């Protein structure tokens, strides 16, 4: 079995600074980490490999320094790592990123075998779009399962996979055929600590580094800034606001009494809401 995990090196969001004057994000000196959701994906991939055999390839697109993240993925036990780096990729939005990654995955498939599963985290903590995973699936015509909270069953004979997917208002149990792209939720596993052997191997491993040509990307105009229709209009640091808190007193402590008091207070302040709710209530 061959599993590809797409990861992204992101600035540690806990330590990001916004320039006090220009309001731009100051990246200088901000430590980078592997996007935490991607670590969940990697651990899930490693578990499947440990159980069923095969190999795990970690893939990232980013600046040359993203090699640090790949090396770290190797210390956890990944089998190989590929860095996609080229000036042409600079400024990519999700459309351009999924384009480049999709082609890199094709190239990985050529070199080390067709992937059965491609993993990504549910989203990154710097972009927060959750678009790249589905974008890759679409471009590679893979089945896609997003927001997966558990992999219940993987049957390599029938090449089917059953997962739990968290959806609004409940959990869906979904079954699909391989190959598949899965984006995983946080908190479904805990990243392992690599063994000394894995750590030593990682320290010595060669990370495969590809530029756009190496990765066989046909249209450079679809990469980077040129291939990115998204425009950042403005970056700003939200200022502090003052808001008055208001305490609502209730007669009793039963849920009904608390709800009643809260509603009365809201309706008093927002008569329009009351009218709206009442109208809806009548129609029900």
């Amino acid at each position, binding site marked *: 079995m061959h599993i590809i995990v797409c990861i992204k090196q992101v600035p540690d969001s806990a*330590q990001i600074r916004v320039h006090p004057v220009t309001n731009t994000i100051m990246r200088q*000196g901000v430590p980078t980490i592997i996007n935490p959701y991607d670590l969940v994906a990697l651990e899930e991939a490693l578990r499947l490999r440990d159980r069923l055999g095969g190999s795990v390839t970690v893939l990232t697109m980013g600046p040359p320094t993203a090699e640090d993240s790949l090396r770290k993925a190797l210390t956890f036990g990944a089998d190989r790592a590929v860095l996609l780096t080229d000036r042409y990729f600079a400024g990519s939005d999700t459309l351009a990123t999924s384009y480049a990654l999709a082609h890199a995955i094709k190239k990985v498939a050529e070199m080390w075998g067709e992937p059965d599963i491609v993993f990504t985290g549910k989203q990154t903590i710097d972009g927060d779009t959750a678009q790249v995973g589905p974008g890759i699936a679409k471009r590679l015509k893979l089945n896609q399962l997003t927001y997966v909270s558990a992999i219940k069953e993987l049957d390599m004979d029938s090449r089917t996979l059953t997962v739990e997917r968290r959806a609004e208002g409940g959990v869906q149990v979904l079954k699909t055929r391989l190959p598949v792209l899965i984006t995983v939720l946080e908190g479904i596993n805990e990243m392992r600590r*690599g*063994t*000394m052997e894995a750590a*030593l191997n990682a*320290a010595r491993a060669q990370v495969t580094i590809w530029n756009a040509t190496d990765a066989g990307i046909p249209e450079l105009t679809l990469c980077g800034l040129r291939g990115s229709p998204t425009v950042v209009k403005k970056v700003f640091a939200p200022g502090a606001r003052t808001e008055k808190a208001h305490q609502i007193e209730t007669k009793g402590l039963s849920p009904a009494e608390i709800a009643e008091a809260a509603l009365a207070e809201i309706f008093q302040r927002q008569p329009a809401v009351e009218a709206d709710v009442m109208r809806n209530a009548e129609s029900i």
Partner: protein
Amino acid sequence: MIDEKFDVIVVGAGPAGNAAAYTMAKEGLKVLQLERGEYPGSKNVQGAILYADALEKIIPDFREDAPLERHVIEQRMWMLDDNSYVGMHYRSEDFNEEKPNRYTIIRAQFDKWFSRKVRDAGAVVLCETTVTELLRDTRGKVIGVRTDRAGGTIMADMVVLAEGVNGLVGQRAGLRKELKPDAVALAVKEMHFLPRETIEARFNLKGNEGVVIEIMGTVTNGMTGTAFIYTNQESLSVGIGCMVSDFVKSDTSPYALLEAFKNHPSIKPLLAGSEIKEYAGHLIPEGGYKEIPELYGDGWLVVGDAGHFVNAVHREGSNLAMTTGRIAAETIVWLKRRRDPFIADNLAEYARRLEQTFVMKDMKKYKDIPNFLHAKADTVFGLYPRLISKAAQTWFRVDGVDKRTKEKEILQSFRKGRTLTGLIGDAFKLARAWR
């Protein structure tokens, strides 16, 4: 257990460990470096000033790609009382030389760079790996280490302990004693971000010029300690530190001390408008020469902070760390070439070589200073700054009092604060400790 055996295992990836690992790897030794932090530098805290000379002897062309903030062209020494400072400034165009002598740096970045050099030189560097124990053979010679990773026992001919001030591995192995509270300082620092232009205007700088301010005085509440402000490209490093034993005795928290320091009327305007983004604390071994532990034994030696190599008077530490790391590495390479075993008798060469360097000479020169300062903390860090500030004010204030009377007043305030024998005694003791 890993089958592979290394020539040398270096414990720690600070300046001492990196200097040692780099020097040995470059000479072709098979080196494994183990660091408990997430990345090299993640656990390391320093003001920080880089002294070029020590690094130049290891990586001559470091200026080409090392992440340096500003080169220091001006040094300010300030003595504070509650409302004022008395200062000496030295600024020279000579410091704008082609190869500047001192730089401000940000350690997290600098250490990453240094570690990359170590890896490029051929050493295997593993982070997030804590050495828990030294392995010894039946005769007590150190033959490897145990780590906290699964299957993480590794053998080596030689172990270099560059594990920093706390030195738990060495302590656990009985190679050194626990740190004494009066031999170690606790320093805290903050990074204050300011736009480049603001820093340059505020400190009268252009380009990558930098200023260093070293401060002593009443701001440490009569405790033995100093404070500092260093200019980086887009930030100021602001910190203060005192002996741990003094903190315990005075029941003061380092953070409260730093707050008071930042609000001092002479300091506050320098920090105005800055955004604090980082708070760090670290121990500094300041016990001096007398606290240096055993430096070597069968199969092991100690470098850097773990060896208590800090010159507290001159605020030097990382350069001593790099130098001891380099000398240790050179000794190991030399023994290896001669096929001499790494036993205590042969490793004594490390101590002999250290004696020839500024490291041991300076450590010895100032061996009595820690005791002097400590015994006189109240006087040196409280009374004298007050008296000197008062003297300056009396002298500069024009108020119709004639100069002779002013001189008398100043003299009297000193006599009142400290007896004549006390004054002479302090001067004499300081001179003797300084010698």
